[in-house]
């Protein structure tokens, strides 16, 4: 097409050139006029043909455009089709995931207490109801076997619906994880250093902490994540004031020392007379940094519902930071909880072996560094120092009674953890650590673990 057009242009310019020369040579008038007329005719013919060609060219251009548009349309259609296929059938709307860990604990000074445990096996099921509504759930077996005679538990760890009503926010309802600390919402073994989770986020923030309720959450383009809501809370009537034997005797049982682990309800016929409120903010507007804080407060009832005792308000707050410059990973969490109006309860139970604490707190600093990396495999040694106190203050203790009876483990400690995570890939991690306890020196232990997440 362009080729033909070019040849016409050549002929045309040659002719025009001829005409110009004809003028210069000034031939006899009659024949010159005839030649001029013939030239004019030729030019007219040529200009008509040129117009025709222009039209033809226009048509071809239009056709090309239409073809391109068609092709583009087809591409979009194909993509939409594949999207529909991806989100079409019930199986495609379903998502499955899981994680778990098998651990080995060896108390250095009490080798007879060495344990191996399938600490948790968790499977998740999600379902997408549409473009904006998604369901998430997780089912957990702790300690391998759950029966009347076994130590294990079967738990629904999450069961909630999330609905995005606008770009700026979404609403969630059901049983969901509380947005506290660094690991409660992201508690898969590949997400933390060390065989067991740190003590601050086990004893003070009672991970895996979940409540039933509703929440609103969202993220801004500037990097502020927010989450607030109304949920069930803790129930002090589950608190054991006077156990005859210590609730815990080794590091792997320390969870039992936590007042919040003892009184969380997990939406199992939870007392919902009083609802609690929470607010969590996270700022991730500087790449590599995360700063956040959260607060939770609610009426936790009383230890004995039949007694004339005041209800206690439980308030828990925490602040956390994480900085990941290149291969390094630094983290810090501080958490503190208070229980109000505990004096009357403690005064009514003089000599209780496990009085109600008025406050508890913990904090840790942790550093890790990828010393070796190849593709997705990496080795990350880490170091963590933490301090916790699940009985930082008591009100109403009768004179002459200690908060902790003689022979019971101390409810506070300072712990150094040295260890390493070896990631075979981002989904499989082998762990080893050594934990040294300053006060309950008997708890000092060596741990091994394998964890996975998919």
């Amino acid at each position, binding site marked *: 097409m362009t080729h033909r057009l070019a040849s016409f242009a050549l002929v045309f310019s040659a002719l025009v050139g001829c005409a110009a020369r004809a003028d210069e040579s000034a031939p006899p008038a009659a024949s010159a006029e005839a030649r001029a007329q013939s030239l004019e005719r030729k030019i007219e013919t040529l200009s008509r043909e040129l117009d025709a060609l222009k039209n033809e060219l226009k048509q071809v251009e239009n056709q090309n455009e239409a073809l*391109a548009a068609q092709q583009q349309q087809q591409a979009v259609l194909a993509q939409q089709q594949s999207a529909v296929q991806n989100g079409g059938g019930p199986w495609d709307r379903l998502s499955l995931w899981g994680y778990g860990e098998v651990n080995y604990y060896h108390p250095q000074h009490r080798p007879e207490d060495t344990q191996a445990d399938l600490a948790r096996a968790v499977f998740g099921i999600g379902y997408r109801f549409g473009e904006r509504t998604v369901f998430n759930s997780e089912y957990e077996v702790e300690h391998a076997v759950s029966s009347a005679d076994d130590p294990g538990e079967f738990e629904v760890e999450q069961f909630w619906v999330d609905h*995005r009503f606008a770009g700026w926010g979404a609403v969630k309802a059901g049983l969901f994880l509380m947005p506290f600390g660094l690991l409660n919402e992201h508690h898969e073994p590949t997400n933390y250093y060390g065989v067991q989770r740190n003590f601050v986020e086990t004893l003070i923030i009672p991970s895996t902490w979940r409540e039933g309720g509703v929440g609103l959450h969202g993220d801004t383009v500037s990097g502020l994540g927010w989450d607030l809501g109304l949920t069930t809370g803790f129930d002090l009537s589950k608190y054991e004031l006077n156990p005859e034997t210590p609730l815990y005797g080794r590091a792997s049982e320390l969870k039992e020392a936590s007042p919040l682990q003892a009184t969380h309800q997990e939406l199992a016929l939870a007392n919902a007379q009083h609802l609690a*409120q929470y607010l969590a903010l996270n700022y991730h507007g500087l790449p590599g940094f995360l700063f956040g804080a959260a607060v939770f407060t609610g009426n936790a009832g009383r230890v004995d519902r039949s007694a004339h005792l005041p209800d206690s308000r439980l308030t828990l707050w925490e602040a956390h930071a994480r900085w990941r410059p*290149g291969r390094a990973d630094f983290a810090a969490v501080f958490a503190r909880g208070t229980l109000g109006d505990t004096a009357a309860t403690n005064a009514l139970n003089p000599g209780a072996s496990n009085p109600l604490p008025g406050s508890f707190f913990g904090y840790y600093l942790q550093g890790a560094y990828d010393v070796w990396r190849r593709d997705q495999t990496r080795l990350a040694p880490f170091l963590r120092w933490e301090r916790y106190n699940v009985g930082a203050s008591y009100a109403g203790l009768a004179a002459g009674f200690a908060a902790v009876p003689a022979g019971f483990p101390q409810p506070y400690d300072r712990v150094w953890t040295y260890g390493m995570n070896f990631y075979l890939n981002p989904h499989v991690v082998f762990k080893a650590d050594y934990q040294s306890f300053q006060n309950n020196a008997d708890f000092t232990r060596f741990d091994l673990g394998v964890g996975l997440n998919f």
Partner: protein
Amino acid sequence: MRGHGAWLWLPPLAAVAAYAPAQAVVYLTVEQAQKEMFGDEALTSLPLVLSAAQIAAIERDSGVKVASPIVRVWKAPSGYFFADAVIGKHDLIEYAVGLDANGRVRGVEILEYREAYGGEVRNAAWRAQFDGKRHGDALRLGEDIQGISGATLSCQHLTDGIRRLLATYAVAIAPR
């Protein structure tokens, strides 16, 4: 908040939730993202279906699997515009990448996001880490691109997707 008063929060929440339409939340349409990156420049779509050889070359180059041979790309006088999608954890994140005439990233925009977690990738500062990157530059999460705690998978898959698009540009568009 004492007693039953707490439940008063619920009706407004439910009302807000019930109001929402059924389509995915669109943070930016393709047209809006194009305007954001190329202003009033006229963009023409560039029909591009990758050949098997090109797919193999892109996968080799980027280390990322190519899910579809169809590339949604537009040409602007001053660069190129890609619209693409990756899986976040379970669901699709639609995003767009603009390149300048030298193949350097001019901007990354999140168009649609569907999951309950990981929406932090919309953060402008996180996306700005890709600006100026071109094919051949190292683009690894945790080294060259900082991740976001709590949104690791979304960050990982977007980083992979952008690396794949830069390879697509190098293999199938730049030589033209």
